């Protein structure tokens, strides 16, 4: 692995760690608060906020599919 690719990989790992921290912080809050909480936490990184939001939506979708069983 080249220096650039290993740095990129490490960056991806760090970013996912950030995503995860926010996911856990927001997950138990009501759905209608997600956007506000993420916007406040990440005023200058809408891409990261979107990534967290997409995970929250996925999480909700999984839970709903299991509740229907």
């Amino acid at each position, binding site marked *: 692995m080249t220096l650039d690719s290993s740095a990129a*990989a490490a960056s*991806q*790992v760090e970013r*996912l*760690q950030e995503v*995860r921290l926010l*996911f*856990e912080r927001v*997950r138990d809050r009501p759905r209608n608060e997600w956007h506000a909480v993420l916007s406040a936490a990440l005023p200058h990184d809408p891409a990261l906020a979107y990534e967290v939001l*997409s*995970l*929250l*939506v*996925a*999480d909700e*979708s*999984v*839970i*709903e*599919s*299991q509740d*229907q*069983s």
Partner: protein
Amino acid sequence: MARSMLTREGPRRPIDTTVLVHELYLKMGGASFENRAHLFGSLVRMMGQIITDAARRRSRTQRREAAVALSAGDVYVDTRPLGIAEDAEGRAGVIAVQALERLERLAPRPASVAWLRFVAGLSVEQVALCLDISERTVKSDWSFARAWLHRELTGEGLLPRGGAK
């Protein structure tokens, strides 16, 4: 653990546990392990690879009459815990395992939890024991990994949603 992976209900009959354990033994070779968590994480990943390879071989040999050791066994990986619908071809399981391998490079511990929960079918308590972590950590890692996998698989339209636990 192998029996747990292979005896869950699904659209196909499970393969013989002995065959899976035999293949696992061959795959392990002279591997050494740092601790219990490393051992069990490695075992489940290897089993997942064996099952995935067998499923791929099955799809390639479907129209052939010659039997291949594992392909005749109708391997099955239940994707319903990820909120992903089953499919008769078993394609969903193979794609899900490939996504899990990507997660492993980004978040090793949640990926290990996901391997043990969704591929091996272990309970939260069993996973905690295998990886030597708390049950709370298992639940947290599993929620995250499950959401990530679901998004990876459905967000790009790879697989349809739906399924039950």
